[in-house]
């Protein structure tokens, strides 16, 4: 299909319809992702409502500095992919290559920092599973476990989404070198960008909820 110069897939009447369908589809997909994380945030809210002290104590145990650094990294990466989106639309392939590479590197940097945080938490006995000893400075260690369980589940799921995002950006880099269909590439980078921004926004909610509740 990709050999067809106009890049129009058979089921569509024209390129406008195709573009509109692609973008609409991506938005509907993101809607399901919102519900996916939304339910997770609801679980968090109920747990926090039931055990406010444990959650405040828990957030003091997280490394807010590293969290802040990661927030900055992710926000910058969103800027980079937004520029890449513009660059592809103008068919500025070199700029697009740089910006996609920057996005990828920032994404990987986020994952590295996150991994380092996990390592610290592992060393300091803050991992309430994997048969590790769990240390909690306050009296309500049970709820402390619940907090850390939620922390690992939420950030882990977010990190997983970011890994998928990095894969997408890799694919975009490859397509950017190879694709001879600017219209198609624009749509693809646009979809990847939407996804990346979404993952970024999830972090913008996760960061204050987990690190900054005081």
């Amino acid at each position, binding site marked *: 299909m990709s050999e067809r110069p106009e890049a129009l897939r058979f089921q569509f009447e024209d390129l406008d319809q195709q573009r509109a369908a692609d973008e609409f589809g991506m938005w509907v997909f993101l809607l399901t992702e919102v519900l996916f994380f939304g339910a997770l945030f609801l679980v968090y809210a109920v747990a926090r409502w039931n055990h406010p002290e*444990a959650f405040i104590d828990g957030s003091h145990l997280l490394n807010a500095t590293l969290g802040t650094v990661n927030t900055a990294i992710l926000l910058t990466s969103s800027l980079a992919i937004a520029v890449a989106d513009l660059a592809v639309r103008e068919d500025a392939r070199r700029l697009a290559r740089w910006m996609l590479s920057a996005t990828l590197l920032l994404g990987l940097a986020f994952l590295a920092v996150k991994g380092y945080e996990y390592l610290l938490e592992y060393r300091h006995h803050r991992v309430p599973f994997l048969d590790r000893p769990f240390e909690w400075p306050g009296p*309500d*260690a049970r709820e402390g476990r619940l907090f850390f369980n939620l922390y690992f589940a939420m950030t882990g799921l977010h990190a997983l989404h970011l890994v998928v995002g990095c894969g997408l950006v890799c694919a975009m880099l490859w397509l950017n070198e190879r694709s001879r269909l600017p219209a198609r590439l624009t749509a693809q980078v646009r979809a990847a960008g939407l996804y990346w921004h979404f993952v970024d926004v999830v972090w913008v909610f996760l960061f204050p909820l987990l690190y900054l509740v005081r």
Partner: protein
Amino acid sequence: MLESLADILGAVTDFGARVDALFLVMLAASLILVAALVALVVGFCVRYRRGRGDHAGPRLDHRLEYGWSLALLAVFLGFFAWGAWVYVDQQRVPDGTLQIRAVAKQWMWKFHHPGGQREINHLHVPAGRPVEIVLASEDVIHSFYVPAFRLKQDAVPGRYTRTWFEADAPGVHRLFCAEYCGTQHSRMRGTVTVLSPDEYAQWLAERTPDEGLAEAGARLYSALGCSGCHEPGSQVHAPGLRDLYGRPVALASGETVIADEAYLRDAILLPEKHVVAGFDPVMPSFSTQIEEADLMRLIAWLRAESRAGGNDGRP
């Protein structure tokens, strides 16, 4: 009259008779509706079958469907109100109940009478007196179900749930676990024997244990070390417990809660959750040191000690 009609279904509580009455009326309404629908569908299929040429004439007016929908809505709301009324009445536990504590576990029911009498799967209660069952679970979710009482309440691990009934007359009724709880779920059944008040008193007397539920709680109060801090005159600054049950408690967070069972359970297991105003959060959690049955004993003692105990602080 409706409730006497409902007698044919054999409910033995007032709530059961009211459920049956509602059910029978809804059943009758449903039967009328289904009969009308069947008559219409069959009638139309015969009258307007293809080839008979009888489909000329004015079409149905669309106002009809709005009228139909609004009429149904009114009927539905009526049934909802009826059902909700019966349900809400049942949710309100009356004063002066006989309180029996039930602990569910895979796959049995353990009952504790106030006098300390214990039984497994086969519960004995007096007729003509409201009996409250306070339910806890040691493992998974179970459900206390007595079909003859039309009564069901889940027992959820980590919290107390409660239900109550007042049986009319002596008799033996089935007790089932209604919430699927694992391999032997269908074996988690027993009986509820309703005795006349005299027989019940006799039954209790024959089984009087060395100590009642509250006495056992009092023993635990010192054995677990509660008294070391909570007795008046102790070195540690801790709130007194003897007249606590059913009273309002001001919390450090500024809220005021009633010291009911759920609160006391949390206060023992999760002391950080509700710190009492004017006290430091120094109490350790007892979640790993106390089991459901002992918790029930402690709370039974607190309830017995309190002068406000009778009404549980609930409306």
